């Protein structure tokens, strides 16, 4: 409740029942506080269950404490870097994809439809494999082709196909999430009332001007929570890049676990780290959402 609402509106006679409103507010606030406390208690009880689960499985707390900082510092760094970079490119891809899906141009429609179907229809893991292991083979074939045709630049082009693990991971994550997000963005763009489009077009704005000036700025607000959700999911999916030896969270935990045969300890440490990352991301997303809703608050 904003502060201004707590004093009677200006220009009107003071409300003789003002105290009743204050009492009601106080009562409701108390109710809300009691509910929050009750919920917190439930969480604590459930956390207690989780911890007694750990006790049941003879969890080696000392080992976790000893190794936590190293794993989280190195692992979380890469998890965050890869997720952030990938969500950035995925957002761009999804934007282009959504515009393609909504256009009337057959080439844009065809490419965006194929892209979404292909990358949503196949597993991310396989996409990573193909990009990491398959692309270099294409590059090699290109170089061979260049040599036989006397086109040396093809060999340079071929080299571009040999991506580092990080590049491969970011490319695969961007393409995969871009495909899922294309559909989300499309729904977001379509959810803008068609009256907005009509008003813009009536003023003389072109189709592209309408999208850029009127539709997109409104859609952003709607799709921010979705981007946030995808970002959270991506943090976990980014663990798949560990198969290429990127030292992110899962890789670090897995390596330690295998070395010292402390699987439960390391997995639960990683899970806790992901959980914290998720909670932080949700919170940041909430902040961003709040900032963007400025124009929509009375």
């Amino acid at each position, binding site marked *: 409740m904003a502060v201004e609402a707590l004093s009677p509106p200006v220009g009107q006679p003071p409300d003789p029942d003002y105290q009743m409103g204050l009492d009601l507010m106080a009562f409701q606030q108390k109710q809300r506080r009691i509910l929050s406390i009750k919920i917190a208690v439930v969480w604590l009880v459930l956390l207690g269950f989780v911890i007694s689960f750990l006790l049941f499985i003879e969890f080696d707390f000392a080992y976790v404490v000893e190794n936590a900082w190293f794993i989280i510092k190195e692992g979380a760094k890469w998890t965050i870097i890869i997720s952030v970079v990938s969500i950035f490119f995925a957002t761009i891809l999804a934007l282009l994809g959504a515009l393609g899906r909504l256009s009337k141009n057959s080439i844009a429609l065809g490419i965006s439809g194929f892209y979404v179907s292909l990358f949503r229809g196949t597993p991310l893991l396989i996409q990573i494999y193909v990009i990491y292991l398959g692309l270099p083979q294409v590059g090699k074939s290109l170089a061979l082709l260049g040599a036989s045709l006397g086109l040396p630049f093809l060999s340079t082009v071929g080299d571009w196909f040999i991506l580092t693990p990080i590049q491969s991971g970011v490319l695969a994550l961007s393409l995969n999430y871009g495909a899922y997000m294309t559909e989300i963005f499309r729904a977001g763009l379509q959810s803008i009332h068609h009256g907005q489009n009509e008003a813009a077009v009536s003023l003389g704005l072109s189709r592209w001007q309408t999208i850029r000036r009127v539709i997109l*700025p409104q859609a952003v607000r709607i799709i921010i929570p979705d981007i946030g959700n995808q970002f959270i999911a991506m943090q976990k999916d980014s663990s798949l890049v560990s198969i290429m030896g990127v030292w992110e969270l899962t890789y670090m935990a897995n390596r330690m676990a295998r070395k010292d045969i402390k699987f439960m300890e390391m997995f639960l440490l990683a899970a806790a780290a992901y959980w914290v990352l998720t909670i932080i991301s949700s919170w940041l997303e909430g902040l961003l959402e709040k900032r963007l809703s400025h124009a*929509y608050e009375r």
Partner: protein
Amino acid sequence: MNAKPLIQVENLHKWFGMLHVLRGVSFTVQTREVLVLIGRSGSGKSTMLRCVNFLEEPSAGTIQVGDVVVGCNPGVQPDDKDILAVRLQTGMVFQEFNLFPHMTVIQNVIEGLTTVKKMPKDKAVAFGEKYLAKVGLLEKRDVFPIRLSGGQKQRVAIARSLAMEPKVMLFDEPTSALDPELIGEVLDVIRELAYEGMSMIIVTHEMGFAQDVGDRVMYLENGIIVEEGLPPEMFKDPKDPRTKNFLEPIKKYHTL
């Protein structure tokens, strides 16, 4: 004969699939004339208005606005340049206001000026303020639409259209979404425009207002212009039984 009409629509047809919504409509609007369009829900009033500025693409017919003449035939896409030329000469006001919620009032009003007409920002703002003052909302300049009442929103929408300095204004039930006590402020603005000589086509259910500002009334049913005439005569004593049928129950409940 009149001078060359500002708007001349000839034999306009509009099909939605196999639904024949406009069945060969022809009419003209002279400069400084106010044409009022009445009819049942679904009779095609909005569709007709929207065909005039190509929000709907006509299926067949000729549409002339100012100096631009666009002939429409099945299977021929009208030229984008022509459509833009028509739109720049027409201002449209919608039932649901359709203000841009992410822009302040002044940003709404200058959007067309800066983006379409490429007017420099400061000149556009001066322009916008002039028209905001005209609808009596200059003090809401920097407010976002959500903080406006329905009547204020519609007045900003009118200012936004006026700022583009169109030759004709199209109103599609501009007060239907408003609470009764807010209707007056919007109708007052439109009335003033009429007195100043703005050419207009108005779709409305406010019969009192229609009689007041309309130079001519047209009754549409099933995509056909059933009757047209001077407002007082049409409302008091409609000729066609269909018009009578439409006006009777409205008169019964709307007269105090």
